């Protein structure tokens, strides 16, 4: 079912400020969907509207065919894991996890059974009687997850689920979250500002800015085929070159760029006209750097000078200065083991990329 969650024309105003601006979104059942954006982009407001803490100024929200637009949070088949985790400090782990079931008036033995099952799922069985102030960050996160999952919601909302954890723990928890989601088949909607988190976790991502979706797609689509400058710039690092279209071919275009100092070829997926100002964008890892001029003829090939370099272990980062003064970032894998550096400061180098590595951005 593609439209398990169906958001239609939803806006939210706070005074004059449009936090969410007329968005449409469909999320399928069992999907792990991320809403990615910087702070103040409206992602949290959208999540709170799904949870029922905010009522949309206009538009409708349906979950599993039921209009929940104006439904109170406690009536929705939706649970949320808060960014602060919001663990009740005056209840122990089991009491926290069982809270939702107690509010539903479920019999005590049944609650006990389901709490035990849930704690087992998040590997906290032996911490049942612990108080929240005795838990580590990772354990707190699991309690929050267990508490939000115990009512078997149709949708689980996760607000920055990993932001409070340190880096090592975050990586491990990411995969645990994915496994749990896979096991239970519950639709997850994650809100995050961390693109790495969004990329690894989700099946699809919506990139949000100023209350609107800039692009919705799989992590791969968003990274490799950004549809506009905001998305290209927001996700990962990218080099952008301003240019003017000189020739429009059948499936490729010629673009002259002052910053590069020559005409280059790009695959034209969009409709462009001769004379149009566009950006050519290339990811750092798609650019090759070499001391000799590469033989590949249909590729783009420009001369520059090493302005700065950084060794990161698995790869090296180079900042190459072109004749125009434009700095190009290049990331290259350190495949060979060697103490001497392949490139040094001030070295004259060639940078090159294939036409299909470049993305044409219109807006």
């Amino acid at each position, binding site marked *: 079912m593609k439209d398990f969650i169906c958001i239609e024309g939803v806006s939210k105003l706070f005074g004059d400020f449009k936090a969410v601006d007329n968005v449409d979104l469909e999320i399928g059942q069992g999907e792990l969907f991320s809403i990615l954006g910087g702070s103040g982009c409206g992602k949290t407001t959208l999540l709170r509207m799904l*949870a029922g803490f905010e009522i949309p100024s206009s538009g409708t929200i349906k979950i599993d065919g039921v209009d929940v637009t104006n439904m*109170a*949070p*406690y009536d929705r088949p*939706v*649970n*949320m894991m808060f960014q602060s985790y919001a663990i009740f400090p*005056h209840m122990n782990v089991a009491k926290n996890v069982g809270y939702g079931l107690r*509010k539903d008036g479920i019999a005590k033995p049944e609650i006990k059974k389901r709490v035990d099952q849930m704690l087992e799922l998040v590997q906290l069985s032996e911490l049942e009687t612990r108080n929240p102030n005795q838990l580590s960050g990772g354990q707190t996160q699991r309690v929050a997850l267990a508490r939000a999952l115990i009512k078997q919601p149709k949708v689980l909302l996760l607000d920055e689920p990993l932001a409070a954890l340190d880096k090592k723990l975050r990586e491990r928890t990411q995969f645990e979250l994915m496994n749990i989601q896979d096991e239970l088949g519950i639709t997850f909607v994650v809100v995050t500002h961390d693109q790495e988190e969004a990329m690894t976790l989700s099946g699809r991502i919506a990139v949000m800015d100023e209350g609107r979706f800039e692009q919705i797609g799989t992590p791969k689509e968003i990274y490799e085929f950004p549809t506009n400058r905001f998305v290209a710039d927001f996700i990962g690092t990218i080099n952008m070159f301003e240019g003017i279209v000189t020739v429009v071919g059948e499936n490729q275009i010629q673009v002259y760029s002052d910053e590069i100092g020559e005409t280059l070829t790009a695959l034209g997926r969009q409709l462009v006209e001769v004379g149009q100002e566009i950006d050519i964008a290339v990811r750092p890892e798609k650019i090759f750097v070499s001391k000799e001029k590469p033989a590949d003829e249909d590729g783009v090939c420009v001369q520059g000078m090493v302005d700065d370099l950084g060794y990161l272990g698995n790869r090296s980062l180079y900042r190459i200065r072109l004749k125009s003064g434009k700095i190009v970032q290049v990331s290259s894998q350190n495949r060979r083991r060697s103490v001497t550096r392949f490139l040094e400061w001030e070295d004259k180098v060639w940078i090159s990329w294939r036409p299909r590595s470049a993305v044409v951005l219109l807006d």
Partner: protein
Amino acid sequence: MSLATQQQDEMWRRVAIVAPYLWLLVFFLAPFAIIFKISLADPIIAQPPFTPTFDETGSLKASVDSFTFILTDKFYAITYMRSVLMAAAATIMCLALGFPMAYGIARSNPSTRSLLLLLIVLPFWISFLLRVYAWMGLMNNYGVINNFLMWLGAIDEPIQMMYTDFAVLIGLAYSYLPFMILPLYASLERMDLDLVDAAQDLGASRSRAFWDITWPLAKPGIIAGCLLVLIPAMGEYVIPYLLGGPESLLIGRVLFDEFFVNRDWPLASAVAIILLLLLVVPIVLLQRHQARDQEEAV
């Protein structure tokens, strides 16, 4: 750090701890001991107006007459009871008024918050006595409230408010309200708002979430606020004296009369000691309860 400076540090640390205890010893425990001593004496017409604890032969001369008198005369039992009830009613009134106010302040945006807090403490800039006098002007038979109600036509003749228990209750609740609001505010302001959202998200209605989350987490503030109102309200003298009727006696008034009107210092001291016991017992019980709560939490 050298050993000498370490020792010096240690010495200062001790001074810092000892000083307040010394203060309590000299200005609280010692006067209390004196009051206790007087309560065991007999009243005489002399200066001071009570018998010495040791007679000329050096033998102890203590009598519990004052205590037995208080415990056998129903008048005192009723007055203590009335004081407890009045203070309890004022405390409940302060809590009922103060909780929504503290909640509102804690949830207001930070810029208005400091203004609202200022308004709460602002009355302290005016003398307590003047503020109680102001209430006399308001509740008088021809005071602001009665005049207004008569002008409205709601009543034909003034309602007798002054010199009633009602007036005392209003006076107590008004005077001690800030002592309720401030500790309540402190505990509500610390509370993470997500907790209430989380409770609602898990199926609790608004009121359920309040009783499950907000109320228990505000408990330290509620207890502190209630004690801060209850304790001074029990022994309050000025408010019942100015606003209360002559026959509605409270223990503070009795204490004053025994000391300064009847000049029966031993009896007055005994009244004070029993009042103290009445206050200390609930506080000790409460502290034991809290200590147990904390032990459970750890």
